[in-house]
């Protein structure tokens, strides 16, 4: 088991955002987390990546408890979180944003090589490589965020709504890329509003509702679940 989340509880001050949530990710899997706005999907990812800490429960990554570790340490262990809302470093250029993604990497040649492959994957970024991140369009920023996340060769990638605000052609492309990344050996935990798309590429899925897991199972099964169709997949 690569990632095991066991009954974690997370609070924002007095707000109880996650209640006894458990889920896991196996090596090589794509796992989808779906749920309505405010269900706690982003909170789950923030907890995994160490931006938040659970009050109770445990998070084990590769057999090690990481629930109290700082965010920067967790990155070292191989978990990368591509946050909701892109979170590009606005005053840094595209190139520098990518370099920040490789912050823990010390091998210059490797970094150069990774940047090259990022540009191959997203030619648009190459055109804009010296533009400030903050002035990119929304879609460009999303591409940059994913590319930046890949720079550290993560073992597990947490993607928070990667298709948000992207043109349909790019959405398809992004999902292809996710699959490709996965094939190359990175496990993926995917949060998506576009549940149909997400479920179509995921192995397994969890459905969150107001801070609890209400349904879990193979992606196929979840996709056919009537209440899921009713609530998330649209009429």
């Amino acid at each position, binding site marked *: 088991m690569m990632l095991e989340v066991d009954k974690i509880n997370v609070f924002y001050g007095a707000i109880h955002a996650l209640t006894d949530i458990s889920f896991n990710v196996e090596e090589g899997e794509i796992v989808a987390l779906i749920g309505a706005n405010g269900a706690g999907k982003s909170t789950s990812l923030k907890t995994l990546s160490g931006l938040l800490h659970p009050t109770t429960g445990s998070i084990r990554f590769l057999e090690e408890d990481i629930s109290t570790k700082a965010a920067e340490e967790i990155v070292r262990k191989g978990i990368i979180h591509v946050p909701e809302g892109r979170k590009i*470093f606005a005053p840094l250029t595209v190139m520098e944003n990518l370099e920040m993604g490789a912050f823990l990497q010390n091998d210059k040649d490797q970094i150069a090589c990774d940047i090259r492959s990022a540009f191959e994957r997203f030619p648009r970024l190459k055109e804009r490589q010296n533009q400030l991140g903050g002035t990119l369009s929304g879609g460009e920023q999303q591409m940059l965020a994913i590319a930046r996340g890949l720079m550290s060769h993560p073992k597990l990638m947490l993607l928070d709504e990667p298709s948000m605000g992207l043109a349909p052609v790019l959405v398809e492309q992004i999902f292809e890329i996710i699959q490709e990344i996965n094939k190359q050996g990175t496990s993926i935990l995917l949060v998506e509003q576009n549940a149909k798309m997400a479920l179509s590429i995921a192995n397994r899925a969890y459905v969150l509702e107001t801070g609890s897991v209400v349904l879990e199972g193979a992606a196929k099964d979840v996709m056919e679940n009537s209440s899921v169709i009713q609530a998330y997949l649209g009429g």
Partner: protein
Amino acid sequence: MERKNQNPIVNWIVKSKILGILFFVIIGATAVFKLGTALLDNPSLFLQQVVNGLQLGFVYALIALGYTMIYGIIQLINFAHGDVFMVGAFASFYSISRYNVHLWFQNLFPSVPAMLAQAIGAVTVVLVSMVVCALLAFTIERIAYKPLRTAPRISALITAIGISFFLEYFGALGFVFTPNYITYERPFEVTSWYIGPEGFGSIQAGVATPPHSLIFSNIFLIIVLASVFLLLVLQYIVKRTKIGKAMRAVAYDKPTARLMGINSDAVISITFALGAALAGAAGVLYAIAYPQVFFSMGIIPGMKAFVAAVVGGIGSIPGAFIGALIMGQAETLSAAYISTPMRDAIAFSLLIVVLLIRPKGIMGETSSEKV
């Protein structure tokens, strides 16, 4: 909504912004006229004043660099910076007059040429101050700023003011530093040279220098070299090195920086230490140039350097440098040729005018926020 049917003359006036330009032209012209006549009147005197202004400007630049660095990274107007600068000056004062740090090399290797030994000694003194200040800033950061990371920006500004008061008045206590003005013993001798129609030579006490010559000292040279050197180093660190880029990333968005594996607390501490080290170096050089140390010596230069840094463009290192040079010239030339009592008023007016023309400062980056 009666936008149409505007009088063409009115329209022209509006479009061409002629009134605003005229306004500045009139003000500017009077100043230029005054300075111009001064230059024609006595060119060597004028040039000497420019040199004087340069020395002051480069000193401001040294302080401004550290200011802008901290300001650029954590958006904190570190009002205690001037006081760290003061501590730097005192540290060097004690290391020179109590511990003879500036002589260590000379004492160890008496055979080495005096010039070299002195230089090494002086550099050591500067380094000692830089380290002391870095440590001090590190402590301050941990105590007073770090707990306020998530608080509104202004809270940290108030603690900065608090720290500033504290350093001053704690320093003024008899058993800490002293409330007195103390004459500063320089780590090396001052030599002044003149250069002019009569040629080049060094100035001897009691002997009149030839007229119409330009006078400058080794202190001037050292300050210029040191500030240019530190400018380049800093610019390199921030723009080119990984830690520098990490600083900018942290400056913009701490949580996301942490998601990249950047230890944002460490980066901020390093930034502070670096900024303070610069303040320390500035403190030593300032004390060498104006050989006196006292507990409140940091307030005025700190404030002026800060204003210069902002006018140069918040967070821009070359901007701080240019702003400081302008500040130096503005002060010296208005003191020399316009009005001494109104000097500060003139200098600050000029800086406000610069801001009006370039609202983001001279080298200010255009807003990176996209709507």
